[in-house]
């Protein structure tokens, strides 16, 4: 059995989803069209936001169990992964695929617990492999490094 912890998470989720439902309901009234349609673009979102809101209320009242939340060190690793991947997403167009991927992949492999001696060659291998696969085998050009157009 999975370890259950307190229901605070469920209550918070209920509140957040209730807010989403209310905002969705509110905004849906702006979505009108000038055509003579029997039901406009706002109707379906409104139809969905009602059960969403009601179920959120139910979740607040009768929460279930959650899994254990990660500890500080795990949370730090997860955040680092997200930051690294955001850096990747931000740099791929200005810097090109090869340097960006090589940098981030190597660091990601390190993050998953490899030593530098393992991370460097495998990072290089993975980057080059994907580059060759997409650039040549699939014919999908990835962004090149600036000043390197061949």
């Amino acid at each position, binding site marked *: 059995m999975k370890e259950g912890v307190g229901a605070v998470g469920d209550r918070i989720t209920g509140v957040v989803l209730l807010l989403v439902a209310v905002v969705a309901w509110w905004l849906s009234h702006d979505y009108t069209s000038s055509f003579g349609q029997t039901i406009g673009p706002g109707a379906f979102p409104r139809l969905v936001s009602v059960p969403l809101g009601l*179920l959120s209320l139910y979740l607040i009242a009768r929460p279930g169990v959650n899994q254990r939340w990660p500890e500080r060190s795990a949370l730090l690793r997860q955040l680092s992964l997200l930051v690294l991947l955001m850096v*990747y997403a931000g740099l791929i167009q200005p810097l090109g695929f090869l340097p960006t991927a090589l940098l981030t992949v190597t660091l990601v492999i390190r993050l998953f617990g490899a030593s530098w001696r393992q991370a460097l060659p495998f990072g290089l291998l*993975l980057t080059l492999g994907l580059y060759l696969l*997409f650039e040549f085998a699939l014919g999908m050009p990835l962004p090149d490094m600036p000043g390197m157009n061949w």
Partner: protein
Amino acid sequence: MELLAFLAQGFAVALEPQHLFLALVGCALGTLIGALPGLGPVNGVALMIPLTFNFSLSATAALILLVSIYYGCMYGGRISSILLNIPGDEPAMMTTLDGFPMAQQGRGGEALGLTGVASFVGALVSTVGLVLFAPVLVNFAIRFGPAEYFALFVLAFATIGGVTGGHLAKSFLAACLGLLLGTVGIDAVSSVPRYTFGWYELYDGIDFIVALVGLFAISECLVFLEDSHQGRKPTMTLGSALPGVRTAWRCRGSIGRSSVLGFIAGVLPGAGAALGSFLSYTLERRWQGARGDFGNGDPHGVAAPEAGNNAAAGGALIPMLSLGIPGSGTTAILLALLLSMNITPGPLLFENQPELVWGLVAALFIGNLMLLALNIPLVGLFARVLRAPGWFLMPMVVMVAFVGVYSLGNSAFDLYLMLAFGVLGYVLRKLEIPTVPVVLGLLLGGQMEYNLRRAMSISGGDWSIIWNSGISVGIYLFAIALLLGGLLFHWLMKRRR
């Protein structure tokens, strides 16, 4: 007899060299993905979709590849269940109960051989079932109008939670969230942008594939980072898998019963392979009674869930192909693939593109044979993959996801969106809110809304059209029956504990 002609046509399609090759690649890759703990059929197929697009395969070829992966995963999931006591994917969970004890007794090879045969029979039974029952359902569905389709979508959502279990309200919450996310973007009918908050990147709506890869692959990496899986290596000797074939003959009753049961579980919308293996194991334990030695490496307890989950996998394709309503997470992804190639499953698909449908069916028969060959003599090869360290595997998943999603639209925004969905998927998993209903909602929301609006314009704004035909009332009643049945089932299971 018409059926045989269609099948013959299908085999002609499936036996084309390119399709044969893709089926083989898919089977091997699927077994591999299924065997790796943490990468189930949903993640595996989700990860492959962007690649499929980049290969610019025809719809038939892409479908053959992905369905072979899907069947392969069902075979592969048993390998790490038996050898490591870690289910390779969710449906393989029940296989650990008797499979791992068998491996501890040095009968790992026998267990793998036995489950290979059981998987083969299960998949074969369900593929035959697909041939027999899908056309029946299609003939029925040809009479459906928009109101009936709307009812069908309600059925799909009503049964997601009821059958898969857990906190019922959470499944429905997830479905509503998915439906709401599905409305983001420009409304196709009126061209009004909805919930875009001025971001023009969102005008085309949330790309289903981006959301999918985020929800499954990225969140899986986040889960992996939480606890390190190091130090679990298959150390015992495998032994030959061939004695397992003889054991399978002894368990033929279990395999047969479980295949039929699994198939039925698979056809029900919202159930899927996990339920198939669960029901099969439970039934078999009852059936064997005092004769069985369940929990301590009884071969019947290994054969039953494997036959059950493979049979369910094939059964789940029936509602997906004939109605356009996916029965499980993986079939939802296959449906997404079809929709993004502008192919709408349903009765018209069988009429207009029989070569696709029957080619797929024939490919399933061929793929199943390939999988049998891959999984009995060559199973040791796949078992060796389990030694691959996590630091190699997970970064590879991340990178394939990133490059694949990026090249869909050459947009960095998609990457950020994928990360956001990864975090969402992770949080939902921690909250024990299932992610599959989110995916289904996102995927089916557009169609559901479209059918609702068409029905309303037919009736001139009269809402009663939604429940005015005998067929829709029947569907709603069926949904309620399934829902109540699911609740009853859970109540009984809880009481027994």
